[in-house]
């Protein structure tokens, strides 16, 4: 295992016991994500992409194999504040202002008052929400709410950002804009990002590597290195290089599908 790995998974198995019998959510998942990489996970529902992210975060315990985050167990990594987690819904607390929501993890982690104020200002600026500190979530659009939830995940300076379909519920125009912003943010923070998505263009546009997964049992069927340059304007999506990568992803998804149908 390499020294530079942010996330390493080795022969990961996870079986859920349900009333209808056992469901294998993950089978023999082996993957290494280097520091500073942007890795997308794509695949149909039930392929285990979200489950994998949750295992990395320590929200699920694997039934076999091993996962290391920054060289430690997921639980230790969580205590070391190694990662911020962004869920599909923004999940902001309606009784807190935007600043109050971003402050939430800082309060729990026991930062000082002045440190909290500094950090809240800095991350809100990062997601272009300065000036909305005292607004309540319902006063913001869905896209702005999701940006606030990203700011919340960034507030305590974790090296790793785990994002579970963060833009899945947004319309395409907002989504494009947020994709562009996320790339910019990744570029100048140098964070490691694990990103779950349903969208092929989103995966190809954002990532350095794309992990294609397939259901029943959830497993990795293909890992595609993305040859696109790091600087990516939105219209890169119309270039032949982009379309070629997208086609490889689509092929990988189809190969996984034919397994069962």
């Amino acid at each position, binding site marked *: 295992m390499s020294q530079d790995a942010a996330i390493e998974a080795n022969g990961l198995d996870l079986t859920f016991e349900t009333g209808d019998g056992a469901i294998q959510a993950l089978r023999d998942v082996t993957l290494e994500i280097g520091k500073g990489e942007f890795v997308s996970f794509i695949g149909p529902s039930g392929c285990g992409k979200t489950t994998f992210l949750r295992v990395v975060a320590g929200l699920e315990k694997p039934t076999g194999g091993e996962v290391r985050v920054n060289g430690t167990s997921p639980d230790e990594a*969580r*205590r070391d504040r190694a990662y911020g987690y962004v869920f599909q*819904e923004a999940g902001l*607390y*309606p*009784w*807190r202002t935007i600043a109050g929501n971003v402050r939430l993890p800082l309060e*729990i982690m026991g930062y000082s008052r002045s440190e909290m104020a500094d950090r809240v200002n800095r991350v809100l600026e990062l997601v272009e929400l300065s000036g909305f500190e005292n607004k309540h979530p319902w006063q913001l659009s869905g896209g702005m709410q999701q940006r606030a939830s990203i700011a919340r995940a960034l507030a305590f300076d974790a090296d790793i950002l785990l994002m579970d379909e963060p833009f899945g519920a947004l319309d395409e125009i907002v989504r494009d804009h947020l994709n562009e912003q996320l790339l910019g943010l990744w570029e100048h923070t140098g964070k490691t990002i694990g990103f779950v998505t349903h969208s092929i263009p989103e995966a190809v546009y954002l990532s350095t590597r794309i992990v294609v997964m397939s259901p029943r049992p959830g497993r990795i069927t293909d890992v595609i290195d993305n040859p696109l340059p790091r600087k990516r304007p939105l219209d890169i999506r119309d270039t032949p290089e982009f379309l070629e990568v997208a086609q490889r992803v689509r092929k990988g998804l189809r190969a996984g599908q034919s397994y069962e149908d």
Partner: protein
Amino acid sequence: MNRILPVLAVLAAILALWYAAVVPMNAGWTVAQADRAGQELTLSDIVADTMNQDRPRLPAPHQVAAELKKTVLDTRVTSKRSLVFHGWITLQSTLWGFALGTAVGIGMAVSIVYSRTANMSLMPWAIISQTIPIVAIAPMIIVVLATLGVEGRTVPKAIISAYLCFFPVLVSMVKGLRSPGPMQIDLMKTYSASAGQTFWKLRLPASVPYLFTSLKVGIAAALVGTIVGELPTGAIQGLGARILIGDQFGNPLMIWSALIAAACLAAALVSIVAALQSLALLRMGYAR
């Protein structure tokens, strides 16, 4: 105006029905009296008399209003004949019972949400407790407390009142404390938040809207509990005692004015809680 108009319309309908009922309810006595005196009465005589009897079966609204004016405005509030005095007695027990019931309801809800054992053992008993008629256990509470050396009526009445009041608070708070979804709970886990932090920063604030809704039901229940607590316990003070004494001495005006006073008190209490609710939710940023 748009909100007041329907209320006034219903009020007018109730008054009309009430007046309409007064005539047949009281006519028997009027006719009997006239028979005894050998008088012939016209219909309008009968109607006029049914509205102004001293001890009517059903007093007319204006008689109740006059009685209310007499016992609320024209009597010193320290007098035992003043409804303000009796209302104050009832209000005190109601507020103590409300505070106690709310505290017990919240406390039980917290233990039920956090402990499987409490969920399985407490909840069924809480439900069963509400199926027992309060009139049946009120005297027992008085006797037990008297044995323990508790003087006066305020404490037993407050306990009877809390007995009715805790239940809606309990049910709502269990729902409110459980209202944060799995995502919200997972989010707190990713911060390695302690159970206490999850409670104070997530579960408790999330339950506030549920709490206020139940407090509106709870305070009305507390008032009913207090009045019921005043009925079978030999109390001579309080709105419930007035209703009982009015019944025993055949004074329907006393019953009806105490009844109306209790209704006004309930409306005022519920309105105050509703105002506090709007204020709290506004400050928490819920309102739009």
